């Protein structure tokens, strides 16, 4: 006699679980422009690869004979799956059941999903759609007492940041612990219009006197610009596609190395327009993204965090097939001067590169930290020195290309100066501790003041100094390794990527204290 009756019941239970919160709740959810949690998993992972863990968790109803009459699934599903044929862990909230606020069994499922990622050393993708804390005040009456917030699984969340790639997607209104689980990741996204993120939602906010809608309070236009999430996307499908692409550059865990992709582009490719990419007029800006896209392998640049920390562009790419981390100054944002948000983005990105052994390519056009009263009030230097510390705590291979300006403390952090890194400049480069304008007035103060015509004297000194600013003169003194034809940059980068590959070392990074 076989166990067929039990196997039949297994199937029946799973069929009941597949109803999620029931047709009405599912319809309302989908009418709001969202996918259900199971549709999300199917859309995210390789077809047929999802192996659910905890598929039988939920709330059953039995008749007087102990026969199952109904079953409502737990509102979090999780398990193992594959993305581009590589194993991952995926975990998602079901908003159609109790608005995604986790039920009791979920707390252990949540911890298990994180533990599974850590111990199997696999990337984790969180599909967050709810508060995730189960923190309804109704529980006070149910339990007869109040609970101290603990978030016991947070140890795993923190350890996973040090161990495996973590993607956090906000796919609905996420608050409290749900919001925290999105932000506590290496790459996070929100969907424009259908996802919001907040510390607490409008009903709680109303109690402190702000009457505000959920989109106005926590839409992606806010959090993709302050760095709580990295990017906003137009659809859930785009979020899943980007999550898959993000993972393609990374190892499964810090105990492996980033996998080399296909070699699809000529390492000796020279693009003529690069010789005029940087304008000769010093006040004129240029677009850095096409330059980066041209120098890395064709179609391989994956920008992260486009709308925040805008004085730098950051993203992953492949060079001669090897995954690398790209940092590039963007002069469109205050001439590439660094503000607090830029330093924060730099630290977040560089820490990820260091954690997952990605060599860094840094394109430098840094006029310095932002100056002026607002910059001082914002505490720019605090965040700036933290960025410098991150550079000096990094050990990944590094290549610096100075494309234009390199001034002040901010530019001094363009690489770790205590170890050998490849460093070259384009002919458009110029540099100094201080810009000549302003620096000159300070350094030649008495000379200018005592001249019969101070303005003429100032202009004369400036002309004298300007004659000495060619980077060729610096190269004579070996201030810079070399000045190269911009069209030869790709060849150099490919050599760098080849040299860097065997230097990458698997293992865990422990960062020291930062100022």
């Amino acid at each position, binding site marked *: 006699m076989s166990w067929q009756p039990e196997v039949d019941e297994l199937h029946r239970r799973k069929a009941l679980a597949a109803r999620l919160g029931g047709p009405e709740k599912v319809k309302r959810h*989908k009418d709001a422009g969202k996918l259900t949690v199971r549709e999300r998993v199917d859309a995210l992972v390789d077809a047929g690869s999802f192996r659910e863990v905890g598929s039988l968790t939920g709330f059953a109803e039995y008749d007087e004979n102990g026969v199952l009459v109904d079953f409502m699934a737990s509102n979090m599903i999780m398990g193992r799956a594959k993305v581009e044929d590589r194993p991952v862990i995926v975990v998602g909230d079901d908003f159609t059941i109790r608005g995604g606020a986790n039920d009791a069994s979920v707390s252990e499922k949540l911890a298990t999903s994180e533990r599974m990622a850590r111990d199997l050393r696999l990337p984790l993708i969180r599909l967050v759609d709810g508060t995730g804390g189960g923190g309804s005040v109704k529980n006070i009456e149910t339990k007869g007492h109040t609970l101290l917030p603990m978030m016991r699984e947070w140890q795993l969340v923190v350890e996973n940041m040090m161990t495996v790639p973590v993607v956090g997607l906000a796919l609905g209104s996420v608050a409290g612990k749900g919001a925290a689980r999105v932000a506590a990741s290496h790459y996070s996204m929100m969907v424009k219009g259908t996802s919001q993120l907040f510390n607490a939602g409008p009903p709680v906010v109303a109690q402190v006197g702000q009457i505000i809608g959920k989109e106005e309070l926590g839409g992606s236009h806010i959090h993709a610009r302050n760095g709580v999430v990295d990017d906003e996307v137009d659809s859930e499908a785009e979020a899943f596609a980007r999550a898959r692409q993000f993972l393609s550059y990374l190892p499964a865990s810090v105990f492996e190395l980033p996998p080399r992709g296909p070699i699809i582009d000529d390492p000796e490719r020279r693009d003529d327009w690069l010789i005029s990419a940087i304008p000769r007029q010093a006040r004129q800006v240029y677009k850095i993204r096409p330059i980066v896209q041209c120098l890395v392998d064709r179609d391989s640049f994956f920008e992260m965090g486009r709308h925040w920390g805008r004085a730098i562009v950051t993203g992953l790419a492949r060079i001669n097939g090897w995954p690398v981390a790209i940092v590039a100054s963007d002069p469109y944002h*205050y001439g590439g001067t660094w503000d607090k948000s830029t330093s924060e983005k730099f630290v977040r990105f560089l820490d990820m590169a260091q954690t997952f052994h990605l060599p860094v390519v840094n394109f430098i056009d840094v006029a310095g930290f932002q100056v002026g009263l607002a910059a001082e009030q914002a505490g720019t230097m605090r965040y700036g020195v933290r960025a410098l510390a991150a550079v000096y705590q990094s050990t990944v291979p590094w290549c610096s290309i100075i494309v234009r300006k390199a001034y002040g403390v901010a530019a001094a952090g363009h690489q770790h100066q205590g170890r050998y890194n490849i460093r070259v400049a384009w002919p458009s480069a110029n540099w100094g501790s201080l810009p000549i304008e302003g620096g000159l007035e300070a350094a030649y103060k008495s000379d200018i003041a005592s001249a019969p015509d101070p303005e003429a004297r100032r202009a004369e000194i400036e002309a004298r100094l300007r004659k000495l600013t060619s980077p060729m003169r610096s190269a004579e003194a070996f201030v810079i390794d070399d000045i190269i034809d911009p069209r030869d940059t790709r060849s150099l980068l490919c050599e760098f990527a080849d040299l860097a590959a065997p230097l990458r070392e698997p293992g865990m990074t422990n960062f020291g204290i930062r100022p």
Partner: protein
Amino acid sequence: MQQSMLLPTAIDNEKNTMIKIESPVSGRVVAILAQVGDTLNPGDAVLTVESMKMEIPVEAERSGTLSDISVQVDDEVTEGQHIATQS
């Protein structure tokens, strides 16, 4: 991936017939480069703002006809300020 799964999240762009163009930086307007009535494509510059000694073009992010420019040369603008409109 089933096609039906891609559909529900498409954003309704038709709703937003007014497209705001905001200044990405604080600074002073030094040149107006487009005229009301011009058709602008993503990346086309509307005006130039001088900031940190650099001339920074303010560009359209989407396609549309320029229906309004609400600043003039020499105006001081702040980061995020609505300076032009497309429809």
